[in-house]
């Protein structure tokens, strides 16, 4: 895939290039280059199949990573395009004009990560959740266990003992 990297580099400013497998590479680009790069990949490099679009929350860095994974079936290779956007007030350009199906992905990202895609069809409609009031659940700082415990009743009567402390307590009741 070296050839592809070379060709793309002539076209766009490429960031970090990670060759994961012989047939799979990831590349980072700036958000303003994304649309052009995807269009180029689709129209000129044969990456016609949008496999998925998803986000990764790098909470520590204050960034979302959007991954656009594309597949070129004829050449049997995949490329994942990464775009890093700030977590605060996250929004991104919609690509539903390139792939209509991307609108679904963008709806999900809007709901699950709180990333806005202005202009994407039905992006503000509820998708999976209904009546959700907390922060978008796929964000790293959302604690699902805590939420579940506060929200839903659990069956009482569960206690567990730590073998280490239990043994100490039983065998050395005075703590020695």
């Amino acid at each position, binding site marked *: 895939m070296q050839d592809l990297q070379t060709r793309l580099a002539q076209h766009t400013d490429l960031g970090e290039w990670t060759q994961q497998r012989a047939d799979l590479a990831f590349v980072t680009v700036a958000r303003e280059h994304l649309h052009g790069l995807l269009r180029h990949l689709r129209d000129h490099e044969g990456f016609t199949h949008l496999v998925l679009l998803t986000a990764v929350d790098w909470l520590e860095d204050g960034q979302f990573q959007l991954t656009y994974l594309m597949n070129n079936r004829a050449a049997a290779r995949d490329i994942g395009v990464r775009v890093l956007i700030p977590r605060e007030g996250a929004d991104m350009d919609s690509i539903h004009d390139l792939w209509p199906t991307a609108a679904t992905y963008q709806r999900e990202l809007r709901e699950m990560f709180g990333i806005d895609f202005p202009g994407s069809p039905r992006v503000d409609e509820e998708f999976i*959740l209904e*009546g959700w009031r907390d922060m978008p659940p796929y964000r790293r700082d*959302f604690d*699902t266990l805590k939420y*579940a415990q506060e929200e*839903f*009743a659990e*069956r009482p009567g569960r206690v567990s003992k730590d073998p280490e402390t239990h043994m100490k307590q039983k065998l050395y009741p005075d703590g020695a």
Partner: protein
Amino acid sequence: MKDELKPRIVKGPDGIEFEVDPLRDYYCEASPSVHPPVYVKIVEDFFNWARSESLWILGFGTGCGAIEMRPLMTPRFDAYRFGVQWRPTPRQANLLMISGYLSTKTLKRAIRSYEQMQSPKYVVGLGSCTINGGMYWDSYNTIKKLDEYLPVDLYIVGCMPRPEALLQGFEDLKQIIRAGKAEGANQYAEKFEWYKANQKKVIHDWDMPDYNW
């Protein structure tokens, strides 16, 4: 859909404005009431026997458990033999199988379906997730204890419970019904406030009336 269900002002052809509350039109708001068994015991026993031998399940696969329902109704296990059959509408069904976990979104539909069923009606919890949350014990979107929200008559444990376990469950449910112990509908009516409070606690988008038949 939600906008259409909100009360709105409509102007009639004669120019008079009046308020329309679609929910009021769509649904009945009568609270459920307790329907006691027939006074004559032998009649009630006979009815209970008939009810137990004719379990009509609402075809509502709420979770993974639905996958084992199909083998149940097909040649291998043929639950029709035991008086069990599917009904496509809640009106005609008497048995609600909660087949596994319920997301809050499904819970809302399950409650509606349950309330539309005619009493006496039975609820069977299928799989671990209905008992104590199962493997989704820390999920933000699934309920943990089914009996907080609906009166449950029987639990069948497993993940998935196999068709054989379900058949055993039907047999046990029949025993319960025949013994006259399956009074979930009355229990629901008696503790209606409690159930509603629990339901409303987790369903934030409560765009339905408190009781829809």
